[in-house]
């Protein structure tokens, strides 16, 4: 098992008012699985994704990642796990504006202290594969949304993570570009990378093997969709 959430709860406190974002979530993701999380706005999807991506700690409950209990690990440990095992794809792409496409994709490898020659080789190959090699020296704002999202996917992939967490990856794209990105995620998934995707779009969710519905911070249904090879 890649990731397991046991009785996870998340509450936010603001000016003394407590808001429950997640309530008693039990969920596991296996290696090679493609899971979609759906639900209305404010149901806790992003909070769930943040906890699964070790960007946030649960208020209660346990998160087990690659067999380790990590829910209360310190920030360095969680950064280490993210660096080595998790890739993120965001709705708004979240590329660093001051870095070129090449430099954005290269960045995770720098934190992994990969040598310059190795970085050059891996980034080059990946960009070729995702058809953005010709945009290598462009800045994010100089290329189209689809290309930006492909660059974001490339950045998520470059460190060969076990898990890709995608937050509305098609939200800012037209249907054709959205489809391209979804096909790309499926392809990666088929190569063995686990994908957890938060989405509003049932079309996008159709690409996954399992759909989890979230409502008011609670897991309500789980549907099995696609069968892996």
């Amino acid at each position, binding site marked *: 098992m890649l990731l397991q959430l046991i009785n996870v709860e998340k509450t936010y406190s603001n000016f003394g008012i407590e808001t429950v974002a997640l309530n008693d979530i039990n969920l596991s993701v296996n290696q090679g699985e493609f899971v979609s999380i759906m639900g209305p706005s404010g149901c806790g999807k992003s909070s769930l994704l943040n906890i699964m*991506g070790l960007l*946030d700690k649960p208020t209660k409950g346990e998160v087990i990642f690659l067999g380790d209990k990590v829910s209360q690990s310190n920030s360095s440990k969680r950064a280490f796990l*993210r660096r080595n095992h*998790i890739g993120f794809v965001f709705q708004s792409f979240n590329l*660093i504006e*001051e*870095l070129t496409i090449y430099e954005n994709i290269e*960045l995770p490898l720098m*934190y992994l202290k990969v040598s310059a020659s190795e970085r050059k080789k891996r980034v080059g190959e990946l960009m070729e594969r995702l058809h953005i090699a010709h945009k290598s020296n462009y800045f994010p704002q100089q290329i189209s949304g689809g290309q930006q999202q492909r660059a974001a996917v490339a950045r998520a992939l470059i*460190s060969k993570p076990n898990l890709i967490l995608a937050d509305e990856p098609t939200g800012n794209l037209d249907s054709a570009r959205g489809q391209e990105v979804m096909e790309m995620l499926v392809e990666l998934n088929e190569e063995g990378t686990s994908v957890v995707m938060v989405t509003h779009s049932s079309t996008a969710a159709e690409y996954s093997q399992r759909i989890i519905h979230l409502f008011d911070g609670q897991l309500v249904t789980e549907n099995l969709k696609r069968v892996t090879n």
Partner: protein
Amino acid sequence: MIRNYLTIATRNLYRFKLYSFINIFGLAIGIAFFTLLLLLIRHELSYDVHHDNAEKIFRITKFVERNSVVEKTASVPFPFGPSAEKFFPEYVKSTVRIFNFQVPSHAISRDTLRFNEPGFYFADESFFEVFDYPLAIGDTALALNKPNFVILSHKAAIKYFGEENPIGKKIIYEDRYPLTVTGVFAEKDYASHFDFDFIASFSTLNNMELDTETLVNNWKWDPCWTYVLLKQGKSPEDLEFLLNKLANKNSPDSYGENVNIFLQPITEIHLYSDLDFELSANSDVKYVYIFAVIAILILVVATINFTNLSSAKSSYRAREVGIRKAIGADKYDLVKQFLVEFLFISLLAIILAFILVELLLPTISDIAGSELGFNKLDTQILFYSVVISGLVIGTLASLYPAYYLSRYQPSEVLGGSIMLGLKSKRFRGILVIVQFTITIFLLITTYVTGGQFSYFKNANLGFSHKNVIMLSVSNSQARFSYDSIKNELEKLPNVMKVTGVEEIPGIGYRIHDYLPSIAFTGDRKNWVFVPSIMVRPDFIETFDVKVVAGRDFDRTENDEYKGVIVNEKMVEFLGYDHPEMALGKQLRSRGGDEKIIGVVNNFNFESLHHEIKPFVLDMPSRKFQAFFTKYIAVKVHPEHRYEALGDLKTVWSQFMPNRNFEYFFLSDKLQKMYFKERKLVRVSVYFSFVSILLACLGLFGLSSFIVDMRKKEIAIRKAIGTTNWSVVWLLLREFLLLVGLAVLIAWPLSYFVMENWLRSFPYRMQMDFKVYVNTAVIVFLVTVITVSYHTLKAAFKEPTEALQA
């Protein structure tokens, strides 16, 4: 990775051009001015440290105290040095005497060149055993070993000999004594309390028709600045004790036991010594501390700018931090990244600071009245100071924003749930308050020091110094023809009155001993020390001193022998209730029995740094008239000062054809006494301007960020009908509140500091509340002007764009 950091730093600098400019320029100004002050401080601390034996060289000084009047002289009698060497050989390695007849200048000529030289001194052959003033040409062992030898400064050599080699050539001293040049000092690259242009061999004095025997044995007159070089391991306190005994034994009986000898370390003279007959006007360690405080304040203001702008701008970097964290950067990676980035900015500021220092060095040297940055050591200090202060400010100023940035939670910044930039608002507010408190403090300092300086310049001294021209005749034959000169001068149309004086009124005096009648018992111990000046007739009219009782000196009354005039303080000191009672009372002097013939008002006979003390005006007996006539004071017509000057010159040439005309306006000379205050005023004007400039730069940058952060709020307010001016007020209010708080903190602080400073002067300006109000108004105005650019722009912008964002 560093390359990645630098890449992103450069691109960010380019993207936020205004911010980058303000940050780099502000930091550079801070570093540059800090460095300039450091150079100034180092210069002040470097006096006389260049001597190899600096720690073992001491100047012998003499204090004589009686009835709370202390005569403190930087010089001692002729025999003091040689006796110290002779009697205490186990302590004294060597001594050297410096002598100049205690006159303001000496006539030096060569062919047609002729100048009055203030920097001429005679010195013992041991000059180079004690001091290390390097020679460019000549042999230190031979240059002063015979009579009529002289060494020239580099400057004097050029002045008299141009490109010629002066060695072996002659200059003429006082038109009579040829001196052979035996050496030239190297160009000056050190700072010393002793500034000279000519050092002649002491033995030259034997060839002059002086009463050398009387000089050699005279323990009363103190004309020699005398320095001892202590033997290794010997304590100055022990020698001081022995020298005290020597002085007590040899000084005249009347005050022998009142004499105290102090050994003054040569390196402390410039900053700690304020005695009579100093070789040159010294500075004061108090000002070094003040400069150090200003330097630190400037550094704080610059650091705050950097911190404030960087933390405000950090909100623009929050998303990047979130992304970097999501892809695996930990807190330390981010702190490292931002430190590298801020240090990079510091580096750019350092480069700019070098340029600024280069450009500003001459101005600051001029303001400080000291040549800064002239030697290798200063260049080194300059380099290290710029680099180190740059890196220190860079690091200090980066710590908070780096820490602050690295704490952003990716889940918050990527999800958009955080109010960007508002988190550090309170901290930034505190920094702005600190910055403005410093600025207001410096402004008030400028106001008060300026006020005190102008008080000194314009104070009523109780005598008239305007339109008085002083002719220096101390070292010339003219004083023997004083009466004829006076006659000739009084014939001139623009001359109103003429007198002769021993010291410059308002600046100097001598201490003489008197025996008042009420205490007259014949016992010498009842002699009292009283500051006094020997004057020639017409002193009172020349200087418009007010006679409150009795009369002026009268030639026909034999006042040279029988009459003295005292001030009101002296009347009090003698125990009389009012001036009339003192008239006719005996006041015995060394010259004989004298009586008080007049009482004058309490005028400031020395600088306003000192309270008025009892004082005596005395006329020298005929025998000593010439000796006591060092200056001729001429009161001229106020509207024809310069015509009068021309006429004086003609009369001067008539009586002293071989001597250059030497004069000064008394008012100018009096003002020069306040050179330390003048320096402080100039430094504080400059630095408070820098502080305002820095604070404004910071505020300008900060206002741009704050307006940007609140643009959505402004748009919403406008959408629901708020007027443009209400929006302006909304934004302005925040800054004015901060500045207002700074004013409230700075006022009592400045009052406390400045009131203490003023209290060190017996005569001082009145602190006016207006000073505080004015500074506050200036600061508020500057604030409004600075922040209005961005606030007006934001307030008058259509809200649609911001609402859509």
